[in-house]
């Protein structure tokens, strides 16, 4: 589903070259729930932005759902983001001027989907996250947990092949975070492929597999139970 091979991302200024990712390899299979962990500045977010086609990379290859994405132009990348990827951001990133219904509708409109189908998908997605009754509310009228649920509904509405979550519970209190995490687990059980970047070892522990990034490189500890303790130490450090 998501395969990066010898991928690198270099930020160049006049004086220095900084490797955000170096010889980065990862292979996420269809239906997997992978947590990507690592200390601040390790390259987690860079990995996520490249995986989500929000940013280009410098070297190596990246196959998403069988497509080599490095040669795609901006429009093709927009189309893939729209059709294959669902984003869940730490800051929810709902559009404040639009109500819940219109927010969920945004990616569907960019897909050029017809009205009745859009409506069906929006209502299904909102049902799925338990917020169908809040369709006419504006983001500011919802709690953080509800806003993140709307964002998840927005990500799900387009039936993406891959869900990318960036610290999805980072801005939530424990109870709301638990609710959101349970929702993600449910979605995974229903067959979705999820890649989640997180600081939180407890959250990471609930994923199927953990990928640890240090200094822009992957330390894949697989499903080895010893990893969790290691990851926790690494994050604490």
């Amino acid at each position: 589903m998501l395969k990066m091979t010898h991928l690198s991302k270099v930020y160049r200024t006049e004086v220095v070259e900084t490797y955000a990712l170096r010889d980065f390899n990862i292979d996420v299979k269809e239906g997997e729930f992978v947590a990507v962990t690592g200390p601040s500045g390790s390259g987690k977010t860079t990995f996520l932005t490249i995986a989500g086609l929000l940013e280009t990379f410098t070297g190596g290859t990246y196959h998403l759902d069988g497509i080599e994405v490095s040669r795609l132009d901006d429009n093709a990348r927009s189309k893939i983001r729209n059709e294959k990827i669902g984003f869940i951001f730490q800051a929810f990133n709902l559009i404040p001027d639009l109500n819940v219904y219109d927010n969920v509708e945004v990616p569907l409109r960019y897909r050029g989907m017809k009205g009745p189908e859009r409506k069906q998908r929006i209502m299904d997605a909102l049902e799925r996250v338990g917020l169908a009754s809040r369709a006419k509310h504006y983001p500011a009228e919802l709690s953080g947990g509800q806003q993140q649920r709307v964002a998840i509904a927005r990500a799900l509405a387009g039936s993406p092949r891959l869900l990318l979550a960036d610290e999805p519970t980072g801005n939530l209190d424990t109870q709301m975070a638990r609710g959101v995490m349970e929702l993600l687990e449910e979605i995974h059980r229903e067959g979705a492929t999820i890649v989640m970047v997180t600081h939180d070892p407890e959250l990471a522990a609930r994923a199927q597999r953990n990928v640890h990034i240090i200094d822009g490189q992957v330390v894949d500890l697989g499903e080895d139970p010893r990893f969790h303790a290691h990851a926790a130490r690494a994050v604490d450090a």
Partner: protein
Amino acid sequence: MNVQIQPILAALKRHKAGTLLIAMQIALTLAIVCNATFIIRERLARVARPTGMVETHLLTVQNRFVGTGATSSEPLVKADLATLRQIPGVVDATAINSYPLRGGGWSMGVQTDPDARKAITAATLYFADDHAVATMGLKLIAGRNFRADEISWQDAQKVEAPGEIIVSKALADKVFPDGHALGRTVYIMGNARPSTIIGVVERLQTPWSGTFADNFMEHSVLLPIQLTGAFGSYLVRTEPGRLDALLKTVPAQLMKTNRMRVLRDDTGVRSFAEVREAAYKTDRGMALLMTVVCVVLLAITAAGIVGLTSFWVGQRRRQIGVRRALGATRSDILGYFLTENLLIGLAGVVVGTAMAVGLNLWMVTHFEMHRLSMVYVAVGVVALLLIGQGAVLAPALRASRVSPVEATRSV
């Protein structure tokens, strides 16, 4: 490009102040610019009206004899005309009480029934001689010119209507709508004596450039009468290319003939071009002022749109990034801002159209303006919408270049 009107409207509802401000600005600009353009066009049309004369080869002389009794000017005028007509480069010259665009003259009612209480129309009276038609370069389209023996010298205080007159076609058509004016008689100057129309010239304007003569702008009568008196005008027709030189020769020769006169430096001897320039100075000034007002207004409106859109783009950078992350292409983002502006613009021009018509109606009642042609409003609407789209283009392009990675930046 996916154009999304409904969500754009929904978002605009949350930004009422800015939206209303720009829409009102567009509406006001449309109302003012439409009416101003209409006034400009009216003024320019007024300025462009032809006098019927060969203006490029005409010199005007405004003369005042000093130390001469009002009734004794006949030999002096005859001497001046003889002098003028023999100057090399002069085609012909005439003595006339006034001429088009001079600003002052003699107007009277014209009627076909001497007992009628109300004249058919007003007309200007030009007291001229048999050289007037040739000097002014008027086009005689029917009948004949005056003969030398028909010219009489009369005191301005007690003028007798002449037996023969030449009229402009506009006057002929007004008084005799059947088109047969030649040989018919009319009563002018409230006189009981009829005058027979012996000639019709294609066009001859009255001396007034303002709105006073708007209803009889081309109603002119040439009378074979020379008025005695200290004041008088001469028109001098020159050969092509000789006008500039004659501007110096003519006053010199006139002074040589008779020093007992005043030729003012500013208005004494002028080319007709200068006369036209002076006559329409206010109109051209008004047209220029209105043009400046229009340009400034349009510039302010465009600047307002650029300002507001730039502000909104800055404010929505993250939102634009999110939209890009969710699959919006660059042209989707560009289209979003263009559509948003178009919607505001449409609201503005709808209100503006009503305001333009209202403003015009108000001016029609208070300032004798004409009714505004809807063509001006239509052109104004299209122009303002285009200006709006042009103004929004730069900030919208900037918005379309916002990277999708903006969505992941922390707040």
